């Protein structure tokens, strides 16, 4: 048993802290989940991606040949924690670029695909930005039901259909697209394939789906006789489901740290805020803060456990779902407590950056209005609890 990070990780931690001090504006509080929404913020995020790439951090876990540093999962964890605590924007290269598109390409891509796309991501340039298109209007939790169709015609596939909840589609240079290639497959999971799609292609329409606070995060993406070179098929035809399941594993190393870092920062801000205005002296408030502090410590070590299992070469099964449910609970509690603490001020629009009445940069309001969105981003709690029940407790299927 050993609960200590190695020297390598501690050194990295120090470097990142120095980096943030130098590169981030004073008093910077991340905007998480919304950097794609605003042009100015997006530009800043892209400038940071570039710097992170130069530091070798952006894709640190990748092998050196693809622009990485072959960093360990523990280094990646430290990086994710710190990046998230300090709110460094631009760490993901759109949705999935760093987390799963790159690793999947390494595993399933052709040599051409690897050589073309991996360096783009690792460079931190706008040409390395990806969006991921899985969900469809009638295939949310029940992903196997997707209907977007790719039909082979000579050297091309012709794609028709619609995706929804496609984050960052309006910023992405490429799309990581799941489609049906065999609608008649005996099991619906068997007829799915993954393609790389150039977002500049003819036949793609991106329609913004504004969320209820007015942020542009999601999109609908329509494919209308989109022609994609057959060379853009990733891996084997009809093997997409298994590739995706596999690739889910890649992001897990970074998620734990990312969630913890974000939450820790919020808690720290709330502690300082309530100490400042005297609310901390109210037993109810400080006990709620204490209680969330307990949950955060628990989240930290649970996340470490997941990374530890991966570091031993095990493929985590239910742990990521477990960690996600746990994180969703924490976000909900932070959101409720944060707005309770802000009281009447929690009404202020978090997008009004310059309102003199805004507290904590609008961070608490943002969390309050977005925590439900975080929760949906990678599967609802119901779906995650089903996975925990089925694979963690070996209970029968419940849906």
């Amino acid at each position: 048993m050993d609960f200590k990070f190695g020297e390598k990780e501690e050194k990295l931690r120090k470097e990142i802290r120095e980096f943030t001090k130098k590169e981030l504006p004073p008093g910077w509080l991340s905007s998480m989940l919304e950097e794609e929404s605003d042009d100015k913020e997006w530009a800043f995020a892209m400038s940071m991606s570039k710097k992170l790439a130069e530091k070798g951090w952006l894709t640190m876990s990748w092998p050196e040949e693809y622009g990485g540093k072959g960093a360990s999962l523990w280094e990646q964890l430290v990086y994710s924690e710190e990046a998230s605590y300090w709110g460094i924007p631009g760490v993901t290269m759109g949705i999935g670029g760093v987390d799963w598109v790159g690793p999947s390409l390494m595993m399933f891509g052709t040599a051409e695909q690897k050589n073309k796309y991996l360096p783009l991501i690792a460079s931190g340039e706008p040409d390395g930005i990806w969006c991921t298109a899985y969900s469809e209007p009638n295939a949310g939790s029940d992903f196997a039901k997707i209907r977007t169709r790719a039909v082979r015609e000579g050297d091309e596939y012709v794609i028709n259909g619609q995706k929804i909840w496609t984050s960052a589609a309006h910023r992405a240079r490429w799309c990581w697209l799941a489609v049906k290639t065999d609608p008649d497959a005996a099991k619906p999971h068997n007829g799915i394939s993954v393609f790389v799609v150039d977002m500049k292609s003819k036949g793609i329409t991106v329609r913004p789906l504004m969320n209820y606070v007015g942020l542009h995060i999601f999109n609908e993406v329509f494919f209308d006789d989109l022609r994609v070179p057959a060379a853009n098929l990733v891996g084997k035809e009809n093997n997409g489901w298994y590739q995706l399941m596999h690739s889910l594993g890649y992001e897990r190393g970074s998620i734990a740290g990312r969630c913890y870092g974000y939450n820790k920062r919020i808690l720290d801000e709330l502690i300082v805020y309530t100490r400042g205005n005297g609310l901390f002296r109210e037993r109810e408030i400080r006990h709620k803060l204490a209680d969330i502090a307990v949950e955060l410590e628990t989240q930290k070590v649970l996340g470490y456990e997941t990374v530890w299992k991966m570091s031993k070469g095990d493929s985590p099964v239910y742990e990521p779902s477990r960690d996600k449910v746990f994180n969703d609970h924490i976000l909900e509690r932070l959101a409720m407590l944060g707005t309770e603490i802000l009281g009447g001020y929690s009404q202020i629009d978090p997008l009004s950056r310059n309102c003199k009445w805004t507290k904590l940069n609008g961070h608490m309001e943002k969390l309050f209005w977005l925590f439900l969105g975080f929760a949906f981003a990678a599967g609802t709690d119901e779906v995650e609890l089903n996975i925990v029940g089925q694979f963690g407790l070996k209970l029968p299927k419940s849906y």
Partner: protein
Amino acid sequence: MDFDFSEDQVMIIDSARKFLEKECPKNKIRELKEDEKGYDPELWSRMAEMGWMGLILPEEYEGTGMDFFDLTILMEEMGRNILPAPFFDTVALCSLPILEYGTSEQKKRFLPKIACGEEIWTLALTEPSASYEPSGVELRATSLQEDYVLEGTKLFVPYANVADRLLVVARTSQEGITALIVDAGSQGIKTEVIPTTAHDKQCEVVFDKVRVPKDNVLGEVGKGWEIVEFLLQRVSVLKCAEMLGGAQFVLEMANSYAKERVQFDKPIGSFQAIQHKLAEVFINVEGLRRLVYEAAWNISTGSPSRLLTSMVKAKANEVYQQTCIQGVKVHGAIGFTEELDLSLYFLRTKASEFMLGDTGFHRERIAVELEDYQPLFMSV
């Protein structure tokens, strides 16, 4: 004991629901979010024609002379349709205190204009401390000959941007708080709309040496907090009714969606995780309904209860918020979009919670009552 509505009440409910569905559809509500005024003057006039502004004012002031309970169920319908208009502010926050505390002069002067929809009023009570405690009132009213001179800032004043008059709660001495009727056009008043998430036209109002004639004091000098207590102990029930209406509608939306939306080849409402969530919300909304009616009935019949009113507001705060949160959860990602009507409701919960006291504030008031209360088993 009888929980049936009277025929008149059924009529109020039916006509309000039909009127609002027709005259104030959701796309209008969306437009008004972006509108500078935040309400539709034409719709306002039609509401006045329906007799709503004067619903519980006596006939001598151009009202219809109905009672507090009738106004409660009208507010519930407005909440159901989240009517964006300064109705609660004008009628509940201002006309009721005038009716209760005004001189006959003041009543004659102000109430008919409210009843006819001619004037919009609002309450300027909270300040940057964002508190409903007397200590939160720092705006000074200094006596100067026939006038008071107001100096200070009010925050979260709803619809001050379009108000004709403000009921301002000011500090007239170290211990004394006084309510003043202030012309919104008075020199020295600067009003600015605060950017709230709900775009619901709450304002910062700065008073820079604003002169108010002493005739405009409502109630007694130095006893203005009684009027605030009147609002906290009675009028807040109307806000709760509005919240109840909203919660009911959100529940219905989520319930319909759970029946329609199919995943894993079944309506999602047939999964216990969803169904039980909705059932819990349903139970709480039903409970809130009875609580609101109980409190409103008590007020109507002349036996208001400070304890019960605080219970209702604490409960309404929790239930409305939870209903919206669970409603969004049932919808999944679609619940997160601007396009779904749910967001119109959800975004307004924060203002409703804050208005006339958040949950912690009312829990403390309940506790204060419990501290002195003589339990039955010790009293017999």
